[in-house]
């Protein structure tokens, strides 16, 4: 699947649509950024409640192309600016991390 396929998931809202539409082979679910750094592996989508600049820094370092922000967490303007500049796709959903992982997992 591709990142753009996430736009079709019901309950997902794309809030940063200007991204590089790369292939998703795996995902990673975690709210601990060091855990993401250590274990995200080949994941290209990060499922997390952490929606701040450092999450984007981690995505960039690990070549993660998409971030799904769970539990309807807010994203601020600066965050969005960086996501746009780095062309990282950002989705927001009211679902929790488990539900999101399930929804994306079954699409893989």
């Amino acid at each position, binding site marked *: 699947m591709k990142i753009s396929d996430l736009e079709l998931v019901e309950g997902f809202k794309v809030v940063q649509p200007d991204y590089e539409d790369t292939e998703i082979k795996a995902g990673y679910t975690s709210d601990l950024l060091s855990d993401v750094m250590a274990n995200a592996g080949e994941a290209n989508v990060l499922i997390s409640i952490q929606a701040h600049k450092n999450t984007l820094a*981690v995505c*960039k370092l690990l070549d993660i192309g998409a971030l799904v922000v769970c539990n309807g967490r807010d994203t601020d303007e600066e965050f969005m600016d960086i996501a746009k500049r780095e062309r990282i796709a950002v989705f927001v959903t009211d679902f929790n991390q488990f539900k999101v992982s399930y929804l994306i997992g079954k699409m893989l």
Partner: protein
Amino acid sequence: MPVKNIQLLQENSPSILLDVIYRSKIKDIMATKLVTAPSTVTIKEAKSIMKEAEVTGIPIVEDNEIIGMISIDDVFRAIDGDYMDELVLNHMSTDVIVLEDDMPLAFGITYFEKFKYGRFPVIDKNRKLVGIITSRDILHELLFQLNHEVARLESEIRSDNDPDLTTLKEVFKIKKMDFANAGKASNEIKKLLKDRNFDPKFVRRVSVAAYELEINIAIHSDGGELEFFLDKKKAVIVARDSSPGIENVELALKQGFSTADNTIKSLGFGAGMGLPNVRRVSDEFNITSELGRGTIVQAVILIDSQEGS
């Protein structure tokens, strides 16, 4: 006296050494937790105070001014002479030699060579007692400083000796609690490597190490810098900060151990994975730290390494 024969202050001493002993001030090295006694205590009481405080000598103070020193040697003499119940006033050494807190470490070394005392009280410019220094404190400081200097020299030698080898050297300043920019240095390092078409696994390992060290400086220190070297064989990241130092390095390297507060944890940091992550991706990992003096972490990642990413 261990310091006496080391002969640090020679004309032909290496300039780095002289630099260190003139740069460090007595006040940076002295113990500030003071145990003192009035002259009205008995020698026996003074002995108990020393025992409890685990020190071998205490300044005798009157109206905030030192009027003498009583040491474990005086106690031994009192045992021999059987006058343990007499007041320290009559048996303390009164020709007290003091150091001033603004003096360089070099003065301290000279004093320990010149006078045969195990410790010197330290006063400030108002002649108020502010600390006490032992030869052990000095040795400790010297070892710590020299360790830093050797690490620095080694990295300089690496780059100076063979200019062809050092293909890159970058230094990034990291500010305390500057989360807005945290990740910037590591992303720049990543870009430098990516632009040179390095193996993605190597790039990732360097990125992980750089990121964790960068975040550590921002979270835990009062600010510092991240140095990045790259040559044909390896990438070296040196993270350096000036304080506050790590209380227990072994514990800090343990997965899951963290001293971060809840604000930091709510941002997804402070899970106790930072240093273990760095060590895991590194082929060579060194850390030196001392409370109040700072921390240096060096991570070496070989280009042709089979380590896990």
